[in-house]
């Protein structure tokens, strides 16, 4: 199999994430993932697309350092500029889970503040950052609400604000909008794209939706069935900024068809279950 990253190696101004021969086996010996060779450039928006159980979430957890690979290496670029919050890996990486994963016992503000609190950030700086992050996701007026008082989409925004509050270089998103209704999902897709255009973070976005991956990403990496590898890479060269008109364009439909076709082999010979 060709390396997914073959054609970006030369053109890099710097890689944000680079994995080489990464595999992950379950305790019972079953291979869940790999070998995975993945390069993501700084500031790039990459979608990892694949059927459920193909190990794409595992890949994300390996990149985040939440799990150790069975073999291979994961490299994550270091923070540029001043690091007043210390060298913790978590401050370079923001993680958004499929569920909002909020602490129900405390307010939205305290939930967003958590990463700064864990890093012992000075209170004044933390306050400013929390306010800024909440403003970015449009939740300023809900700062003192409790998570249970919010809708699913709003909870996801809180989760996003929490990931952004440390100003990470890399944003890892594990099917963050999969549990939301379509209307909310579309809106959050647009918000995420706007955030990405403004902040130019590196985003690795795991999804099982062809349409979502094409709409959001600059590059869609299609993963195969377990053990998950990168089976195909499709560049989505669409004019920026993308918006609702892109979602209804012929170009969009063309890309979706291409990605779907690339995804098809990974389902071959197996039922959906």
């Amino acid at each position, binding site marked *: 199999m060709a390396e997914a990253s073959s054609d970006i190696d030369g053109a890099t101004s710097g890689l944000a994430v680079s994995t080489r021969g990464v595999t992950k086996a379950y305790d019972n010996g079953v291979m869940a993932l790999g070998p995975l060779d993945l390069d993501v450039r700084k500031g790039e928006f990459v979608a990892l697309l694949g059927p459920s159980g193909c190990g794409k979430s595992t890949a994300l957890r390996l990149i985040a350092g939440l799990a150790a690979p069975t073999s291979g290496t994961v490299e994550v670029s270091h923070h540029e500029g001043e690091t007043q919050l210390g060298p913790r890996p978590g401050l370079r990486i923001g993680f958004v889970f499929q569920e909002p994963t909020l602490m129900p016992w405390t307010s939205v503000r305290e939930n967003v503040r*958590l990463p700064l*609190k*864990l890093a012992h950030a000075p209170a004044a700086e933390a306050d400013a950052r929390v306010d800024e992050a909440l403003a970015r996701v449009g939740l300023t007026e809900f700062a003192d609400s409790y998570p249970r008082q919010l809708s699913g989409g709003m909870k996801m925004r809180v989760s996003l604000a929490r990931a952004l509050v440390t100003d990470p270089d890399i944003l890892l998103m594990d099917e963050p909008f999969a549990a939301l209704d379509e209307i909310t999902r579309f809106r959050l897709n647009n918000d995420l794209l706007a955030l990405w255009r403004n902040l130019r973070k590196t985003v690795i976005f795991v999804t099982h939706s062809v349409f979502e991956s094409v709409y959001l990403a600059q590059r869609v990496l299609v993963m195969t069935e377990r053990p998950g590898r990168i089976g195909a890479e499709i560049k989505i060269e669409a004019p920026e900024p993308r918006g609702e008109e892109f979602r209804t364009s012929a170009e969009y439909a063309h890309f979706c068809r291409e990605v779907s076709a690339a995804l098809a082999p990974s389902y071959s010979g197996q039922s959906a279950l």
Partner: protein
Amino acid sequence: MRYVRILLPIVVLAVGTALWELVVRLNNIPPYVLPGPMAVFSTLVSDWPVLSQSLLTTLLTTLEGFCAAAVGGVGLALLFNQSKWLEYSLFPYAVILQVTPVIAIAPLLLIYLPQQTAVIVCAWIVGFFPVLSNTTLGLNSVDRNLAGLFQLYGASRMQTLRLLKLPSALPYILGGLRIAGGLSLIGAVVAEIAAGTAGAGSGLAYRIAESGYRLNIPRMFAALLLLSVAGIVIYGLLALISHLVLRRWHESALGKEN
């Protein structure tokens, strides 16, 4: 509907008490066999100086046993959570302590410990286990992704404990405390009964035993009534505290309409 739920038990109580009084009066049952509710009540009033003193003693013992159970249960659970070795080594003995009937342990404790201490230890033995097992359950029920998040942000053990594990476990801990409250009272009573004839104790259970020997049946009933009321008040207080602590966020304390 709400009023009915309050009203019905009161009606049952009133009818039951009236029937009891009626049976006693119609059959001319002497008070040393079965006192009517009126006789019990008047004994409660006339013996109040003695009974209130005993009530206070029992409540104090219960409180001390309860505090020991709360601190011991939560503390042990935290230790177990930090060290699997410690958990594997000690947990079986916590279970053994729990399944051995306290009424059988009490006489032994009374031999080796000063009476007051023995009574508190009894209250502790029956009270600590639900706190321990509930807290352990709570500490192990932490949301896996939240735990991952704490790991990602490099949280220290103390931070994880203070900011994640304890708040997650809080509803479970409070549930354990609610059970422990009633059990501490039982433990205290059991120990008092076991110590009863030894003399020095003046708790309510001791009064019940003493009144039994003296055939002062109305006072037995009066003391029993006070014990029941004490149990209800303890449970109610703990339920109230639990509600107040959790009302902002936990499902159990939220109204049904949410």
